[in-house]
């Protein structure tokens, strides 16, 4: 029995030795953590460090790399397509914010008011998240078919509206991408907001009701302030995700038509892989490092600004 008892805590003044560290369970802790440390080191940290190193090199991964200083960063900044990609990414982020951000909050609030079959609604809302992203995009490509027989165009036809070039027009392609992205991602956010709504004390609603508050006033003055912390976190997560949007432009349009959906990540991909002869991995990693740096700074500033407004 005595073997299962924890030894008494060592006095603070006692000197830590390797033996005492082992006796305190240090070795077993390290051994437990080692597989994870190895996996992270091999699959996460090494590629990150190599990317940073590669951003200062010229390499085709076969012949020896050559140090080129800041040339890659300079080449990226001189690329006329960079401005287009940044603007397109900002446009995607803005559209996703306007179209996509309020939708899950609204859906979660409405669903929380449902008394029966809440599970069914939750499952339905979460379903798009379960569909593999590539399958979802291919499915939506069928919906977006620009011919009069396309799914969406057929529906529009019922209302006397002519066929729309969903993905084949420079002005409509990006909004079309955002609609699918919103559909695909909303489910996860709805579940998080639903969980957060459960933590809102019911007394607050009771008190508001006693004061004669309407449902909208309750939502505005009780629900939203209580969700503030979650909303701030979700907002920065969405900004980070939209700044790195790749899947939709890559699979839907390949950046077209006429570069109207080229995003920063797609540009990185193009630098690395579009040229069949080895690609410009230096420029690709340079732009990746710049993007990561920018997002890190953005996140830090965002948390500094929102910290005082968030609930603890």
């Amino acid at each position, binding site marked *: 029995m005595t073997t299962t008892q924890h030894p008494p805590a060592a006095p603070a003044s006692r000197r830590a030795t390797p033996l005492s560290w082992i006796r305190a369970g240090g070795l077993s802790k390290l051994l*437990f953590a080692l597989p994870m440390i190895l996996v992270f080191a091999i699959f996460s940290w090494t590629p990150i460090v190599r990317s940073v190193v590669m951003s200062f090199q010229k390499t085709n991964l076969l012949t020896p790399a050559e140090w080129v200083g800041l040339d890659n960063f300079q080449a990226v900044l001189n690329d006329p397509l960079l401005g287009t990609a940044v603007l397109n990414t900002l446009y995607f982020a803005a559209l996703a914010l306007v179209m996509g951000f309020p939708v899950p909050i609204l859906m979660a609030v409405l669903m929380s008011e449902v008394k029966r079959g809440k599970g069914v609604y939750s499952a339905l809302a979460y379903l798009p998240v379960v569909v593999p992203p590539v399958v979802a995009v291919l499915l939506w490509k069928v919906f977006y078919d620009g011919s009069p027989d396309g799914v969406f165009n057929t529906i529009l036809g019922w209302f006397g509206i002519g066929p729309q070039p969903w993905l084949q027009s420079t002005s409509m392609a990006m909004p079309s991408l955002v609609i699918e992205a919103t559909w695909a991602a909303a489910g996860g956010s709805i579940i998080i907001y639903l969980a957060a709504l459960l933590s809102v004390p019911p007394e607050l609603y009771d008190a508001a009701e006693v004061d004669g508050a309407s449902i909208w006033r309750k939502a505005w003055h009780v629900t939203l302030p209580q969700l503030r912390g979650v909303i701030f976190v979700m907002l920065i997560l969405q900004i980070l995700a939209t700044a790195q949007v790749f899947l939709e432009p890559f699979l839907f349009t390949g950046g077209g038509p006429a*570069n109207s959906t080229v995003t920063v990540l797609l540009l990185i991909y193009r630098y690395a*892989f579009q040229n069949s002869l*080895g690609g410009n*991995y230096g420029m690709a990693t340079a732009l990746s490092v710049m993007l990561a740096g920018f997002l890190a700074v953005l996140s830090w500033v965002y948390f500094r600004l929102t910290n005082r407004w968030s609930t603890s």
Partner: protein
Amino acid sequence: MMSISRRTAAAGVTLAAGAMLLTACSSGEGGEAASSSDAGGSKVELRVATFPPGADAAAYEAFATQEAQFEEANPDIDVIGVEYEWTGPTFAVQLAGGSLPDVFTVPFTDSKTLLENGQLMDVTDEIEELGYTDSFNPVILDGVTGADGHIYGFPRQAYAMGLHYNRDLFEQAGLDPDDPPATWDEVREAANAITEATGKAGYAQMAINNTGGWQLTAQTVSRGGRTQSDDGDGTYTSTIANEGTKATLQFLHDVRWEDDSFGYKVDLDWGTINQEFAAGNIGMYTSGSDVYTALVRDFGMDPAQYGLTVMPLEGDDPGTLGGGDIAVVSPTVDDATKAAAVKWIDWYYMQKLMDEDAAVADASALAAADQAVGTPVLPVLSRELYEQSQEWIADYINVPLDQMAPFTDRIWDQTPVGEPKGKTQEIYALLDPVVQTVLTDKDADIDALLAQADADAQALLDQ
């Protein structure tokens, strides 16, 4: 102490499990090692490119027959077929990741840069030994010869650009499928008629993944223009803003916006346009003359619907853009695998071009598995040898040659023109948005687009 040792033991087990997981993850390396000669030294394992993903089972049956024939003749080599398709993005990744087969094919346009980068195996001695260095068309051999005079690949197949059309849609539109359009104006008229009669795209063109630039270049050449000039000292000058390119873009604009016979898809590439054409949704499009094999084998096209004619030629000094590919050996293989690779290339790709027995064996194996035999290509050796080989395999030819007669009867009268040499794929990529703009913007300023593309291309060439 006992509690510590129990925890340590548990941690040890966890660590061992983690190590096993990592070992499992790294098993790919073992697979790569298998590509070189095996430890026993009895057999060399050779990973060779077969077909693009999506090829039908019969194609693999035919390949299995040929594989067995080769292994019987070379009992010390174990051939392993690997699915392979040349596409810009995946090729670069496979090359960098070391997952390319030991023997694969690359287009002419990339061979020069690859060999200059040291990314292809030197096969000069092997070609000399096989004794057919002098048999190659010198222009084609130049594409695989490095600055050091060494040869880095086996040119195995060439094609000329052609106009492919759907005979069924022609008939439905009241057009004669045996008398296809011979001028670009006639192409436009036929496209119009097809769309009016069937509602399908009368004419379509590739526009993404570098294929937009490729086809724009091909049609520029057919109108007498050139997108690049070779200065002869290793430098090139962009000539994109020429009348041929302008006329091509104007043609696309008019088909799309004035006639409305382009259809709704402006985001097609080599694979998707083949798919659409094979499904009967496109009346006409331009692509390499050898695409029939893929249309039937990979996209399930009904051969009876297929028609092929030459590119319409206009203007001064028009020509037909040609291309093709070469069989090469991965630069990372050992000597034994290299020797096996050369044997395979000689047996699988080359002998059928110059030896009657090999040609007949190849054709009979393909025909037995119901694979296309006799698809029109251009000779990488001499025209005489090519025509001779067609006679050898005449009994096995199963492609509808009558439906390809408008092409095969006239192609020898057209001037072959090679693809631009400087930064070929990058400039094709740069031209994609130009094609897309014309197809998506009714008011596109073609002159301004060309001026910008010309300046961008020259900047690339000057790098």
